[in-house]
């Protein structure tokens, strides 16, 4: 069963609540993927805020912390497939940085669904849309992030 199907059969913790998902996308691949998703008219929830960076290597763990502290229910780190980075090895660096970041976020007690890494090329519109849909379903089940400041929806 896909995560979406699971979500459809189990009642969500917060009915009608739309999570806020921050997706960091690199200019050359995953941002293109998001674009293709739109052009291909793949349905996706309105939960995502995309932040475009030139390369996934530019995503500082600090940006991720900041998104969580400002109220993101999930943060997605995305970029080109390994070997396809426009700046040769930016995403290799992302991969290493992510390992540290993931450890800290997990140890803090944040559920693993709330921080995810994915490589998506500019032509993979459907993959992008599915990813967003799956994450949205997972987060709907989990409910709002425990790091969300008081008074932020």
């Amino acid at each position, binding site marked *: 069963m896909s995560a979406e199907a699971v979500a459809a059969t189990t009642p969500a913790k917060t009915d009608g609540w739309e999570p806020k998902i921050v997706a960091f996308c690199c200019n050359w691949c995953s941002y293109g993927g998001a674009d293709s998703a739109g052009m291909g008219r793949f349905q996706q929830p309105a939960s995502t805020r995309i932040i475009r960076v030139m390369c996934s290597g530019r995503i500082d*763990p600090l940006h991720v912390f900041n998104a969580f502290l400002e109220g993101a229910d999930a943060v997605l780190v995305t970029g080109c497939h390994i070997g396809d980075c426009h700046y040769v090895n930016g995403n290799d660096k992302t991969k290493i*940085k992510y390992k*540290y970041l993931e450890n*800290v976020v997990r*140890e803090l*007690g944040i559920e693993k669904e709330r921080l995810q890494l994915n490589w998506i090329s500019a032509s993979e519109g459907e993959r992008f849309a599915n990813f967003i849909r799956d994450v949205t379903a997972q987060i709907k089940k989990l409910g709002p992030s425990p*790091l*969300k400041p008081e008074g932020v929806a």
Partner: protein
Amino acid sequence: MQKGEMYVGWSTKDDVRKRGGSGGLVTSMLAAALEKKFVDAVVVLKKINEFEAVPIITSDVNEVLNSAGSLHSVPSNFAKLIANRNLKVALPAKGCDVRGIIEQGKRNAINLDNTFIVGLNCGGSMHPVVTREMLEVMYKIKPEDVHGEEIEKGKLIFETKDGKEHAITIDELEEKGYGRRESCRYCTIKVPNNSDIACGNWGVTGDLVGKATFVEINSEKGAKLLQNAVDAGYVQVQKPDEKGVAMRAKIKGVMEDLGKKWKGKVFVPIENGRLEYFRKELEHCIDCGACKTVCPTCSCGDVSKCTEYHFRGDAYKMSMYHLVRFLHLADACIGCGQCSDVCPADIPLTRLYRRFANPVQEQLKYEPGMDMQKPPYFEVKLNE
């Protein structure tokens, strides 16, 4: 003399030998290095009272000679003192001090080729404030009346000015929350083989007990340092007996196992409510920044990521300052305990930082401060 050799030795100056922690060899070796222009300066602890001392950089041989003796209630941080100074220096250092110095070396803040590290075996050190309280509560003596302290056969012994000795086992003290700092209990660097030469009293036998220092040479620099002291007539050495060598290895093993056991006791996995746990512990942080200033593996200086993006007015659910430090120290924290020592809000910071560092360092099979291996982040071959 060369790497791998072991000796038992002592200071040829009677007065230094008497005052020294176990024979005054360390003090004399440092003094000889200075006298023979082997180094430009030496770092030693300058005592203020029985429980307080400050590390000083000196080129005065007498000041070095006066520093003989072990202070168990002073966790010193020598790494930051010599960082960014470009000194040719020799200094004594406990396991954690050595690790801090090596980490500063990796960050190009200390030139290790010009740094002669005299390692001290270390069973643990105590916090001065806790020590004072312990004296009143457990020993029923006034801290001002204390004249000296030593550790013998698992007991912490204080001598008072009236000549009396007061002894309590360290186990009993720690059961009551006193004794060694928590980080020392689970520290497993008992013989600092990461230094140039490791010195201690373990392994000294027979008549020499209390009057000689056991040394193990860990590097060429260490060999030179000892040879220089012997040539200068400052110290006398002989080969250790087999019994002593075996005894030292055995105690080292026992202490390391004990440290591992403590680690398990302190870091009981928290299944639920981890975020709440960290939030609660950090609730009283006043953002003074002392934990960063003292941290021997941090070399960012005043302008740093952890401070520049942290605004108290944000009123976030977690401190950005600590989040960044949790991340940056995941592969760098050496568990020296200094952050807990200095926190004015009494936050058990080392315990919190190690929660992140333990799993990361185990996963990466990386122990900072033990050798020159770079943090794995920098060692990954990119695009292979």
